[in-house]
C-alpha cells in the first residue's frame, strides 16, 4: 500500500492529529518560524491558499507602514479575526507569542513585489 493511501485511510479513520512536530528552529529564521507555527497551512508567499498570500498582504498594507500597523496585524495574528479580505476570519493563533507575531508581521510586510 502506498503512503498516500495509507494517509487517506488514517484520515478517514480520524484517529489522531497534529501533536507537535517541529517545535525547534533557528532563532533568526522567520520563514521557518512561519512553518513551525503552521501559518503555511493557510498562507504561502505568492499564492493565495485558505488565506491571502504574503505578497498580497504586503501590497495591501504598503500605503500605511508604521509600528502601529505591525502592532495591529500582530495582535490579529494571535487573536484571529476577519473582515479585511472577505468573510472568512483567520483562526486565533494563540500558540504564537506576540513577539513572534511581530517578527512574522515585519517579515510578511517585506514581501512586497519588487522588494
Amino acid at each position, binding site marked *: *500500500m502506498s*503512503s498516500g*493511501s*495509507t*494517509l*487517506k*485511510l*488514517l*484520515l*478517514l*479513520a*480520524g*484517529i*489522531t*492529529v*497534529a*501533536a*507537535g*512536530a517541529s*517545535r525547534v528552529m533557528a532563532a533568526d529564521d522567520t520563514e521557518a518560524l512561519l512553518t513551525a507555527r*503552521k501559518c*503555511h*497551512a*493557510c498562507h*504561502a508567499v505568492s499564492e493565495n*491558499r*485558505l488565506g491571502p498570500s504574503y505578497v498580497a498582504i504586503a501590497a495591501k498594507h504598503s500605503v500605511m507602514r508604521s509600528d502601529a500597523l505591525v502592532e495591529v496585524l500582530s495582535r490579529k495574528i494571535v487573536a*484571529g*479575526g*476577519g*473582515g479585511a479580505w*472577505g*468573510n*472568512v*476570519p483567520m*483562526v*486565533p*493563533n*494563540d*500558540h504564537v507569542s506576540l513577539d513572534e507575531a511581530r517578527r512574522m508581521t515585519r517579515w510578511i510586510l517585506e514581501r512586497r513585489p519588487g522588494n
Partner: protein
Amino acid sequence: MRINRYLLSSLPATAAALVAALAAAQNGFAEVMVDGAALDLGGTPLAATQISLQPGIAGPSTITIFTGDDGHYLLPGTIAGRAAADINIRAVKLGYEHVDTLRSITDTGDGNQRLTLTAVMRRSANQAGVAPASAWLKDLSLADQAQVVMACVGCHQLPAPEVRRYANLIADLPGDAAANRAAAWPMIVNYMNFLSAEEFSRGNPHNPSPEPDRVYSGGQAEVNGALLARTLTGRMDYVAGYDYGAPLAVNEHTVIREFEVARPNAIREAVMMGTPPRLWAADVSSNRIVSIDVATGVTTDFEVPTELAMGPHTLVPGENALWVAAFFNGYIARLDIPTGKWQTWQLHTNSGGEAGVHDLTFGPEHQLLADYRGRIWYSDIVNNAVGFFDPASGEMGTYPIPEIEGRPGSGASVYGIVMTSDRKHIWFSQLGIASFGSFNTETLKFEQREVLDNLKAGPRRLAITEDDILYVPLYGAGQLIAYDTKARRTIAVHDLPDRASAPYAVTWDPLRKVVWIPTSNANAIYRFDPATKDFSVLPLPREGAFLRMLQVHPQTGLLVTSYANIVETVHGPRMALIIDPGDQDVLAGTMPTRHTAINGN
C-alpha cells in the same frame, strides 16, 4: 476478592500525605485539613457539587471531590507545605455559577489547621464553560450529531472552546451571517485536513511533509463545512438546558486525582501498573512512555528504543509488562516493568507491507490475552486486517477482513479487538463501516459479521466479559450494544444518557460487574449496570476532558484514564487520572479506607 495490602497502603492519598508531612516538617507550615460546603444564595446546601483544589505539593496536580447530600465535602488527607491562606477551591455544578468563596481558618490545637472553604453558588441558565461540548449539539438531529462526532470528534471535542471562539469571530462579521458561515467553516475543515495530513506524515520516513493544496480535500470540506455552518450558528458563549441525562454516579467519597504531564506532549492513554503502582502514559507526539510516580507526581520518560516506532498510542497491561502499539511503522513494544527493559517487534503483512497496528487483544480484565497458542492478535487499521505475532517464535501473519456488500471498500478502520475466554475467537470492530465481527484463531477463518444499519454508528473500542458478552460503544450514534458472542445475537442496544457524548471505548469492570464508558465529547464517564440496565454519570472536572481508554486497576478497583487531546491548536488538558468512584460499599472492603468525618462543622 484478591487484594494486595501493600498496594493499598501505597495508594496516592496515603503516600501524598506522607510526602506532605515530610514537606511540612521541612518548611514549618502547618498541616491543613480542608473541608467546607456548597451553598446556593439562599443558603441551601447543594449536593454533588464538584470541588477542585490544587494541592500544590507532591502528588496529583488537582484533586476533585464532591459534596454529599448535606452539601458538605471533606478533602481526604491533609495539605502541607503551603500556607492555608494560599489554598483555594473551584466549585462546579451544572446550572450554577461559583460566585464567591467564604474562608475560615482555625487551629486544631495540635499545631495543625483546619481550612473551611464554602462555595457560594448562584443559579445560572447559561451553562457555557460548565456543560460539555456535547451540550451545544443537543438540539441537532441524531443524524447530524453522528456526522459531527464522526467527522470531528475523533480528533478533538466539538465545539471545543477554540471552535466556539471561531464561531464568535464569524458571528461578529458584518453582512449575511449564513453566507459568512458557509464561507468560513469549509476553510476550517481544510485547515484541519492539513493538520491531520501533517501529523500522519510525521512518523513516516517515506512521506515528506504534505503540500497544503494536496491535502485540503481530505475530509470532505464541502459536506462537513456545510454541516458545521448549520450546526454552529451565532455567537457561542451561551448554552442552556443541558442535563446529564442520568443520575450522577458520585458521592462524598468520590475522588478524582489528575496528574498533569509537562508539555509538550499528546498523552493518549494511561494505565496503572507495578508495585507500588505507577501511572504509565503513552505520548503519541513523541516516542516515549511517561511514567508517573503517583505519590510525588514526578515523571520519568521511557523511550521506545527505535526511531522507527513513532507515536505510542495504545497501552495494554500484561504480566509485569506494558504492551505498547505505536502509530507508525508497524511496531509493537513491550516494556518489562520490573527491569525497565524494552523488546520491540516490527510487524508486517503477509505481502511484506507495513502493518498499521491499532489495538492488541485483551480479555475481561483489560489485560493482554494471547490466543490458545500464545499468539497476540492485533487490529491493522491501515490494511483492514487482523494480524498476529508470536512473541516467542517471532512468527507473524495477517488476514484481510472481507468487504461487506454495499459498504465502502476503503476507510473501514478496523479498530477495537478482544479475545474470548476459550482464546479461540477474536472480535473486532470496524469504526468506518459500522460493522463488527469475529475471527476464529484455530480455523483462521472469519466467522460472524454484524452490520449496523447506520453507516455513521461508529463501533469503536470493545470490551468483553468473563461470560463472553461483548460490549460495543457506538461513537457516532451514542449508544451501547450488548452482544452475546456465544449465541451470536444482540442482547440490547442502549441509548447513552447523551447521544452526542461520543463514547470512545467501553471497559468491563470485573470487580463491580458494570461497564464503564469513557466519552470524548461529554467530559464524563458513564457507568452502565447490566443487572438493572441503569446508566449513571461520573462528570469530570474540566473542559476538554476528551477520554479514550479507561482501565479498572485490577488490584484496587480504581479507574485510570487520561485526557487524550492531540490537536495542538485545539488546546486541552494533558493529564492522566486516577478516579475513586467512592463506592466502597459496592466493593465491600476492597477499597482504601478513607478519612472519617471530622467533628463539628
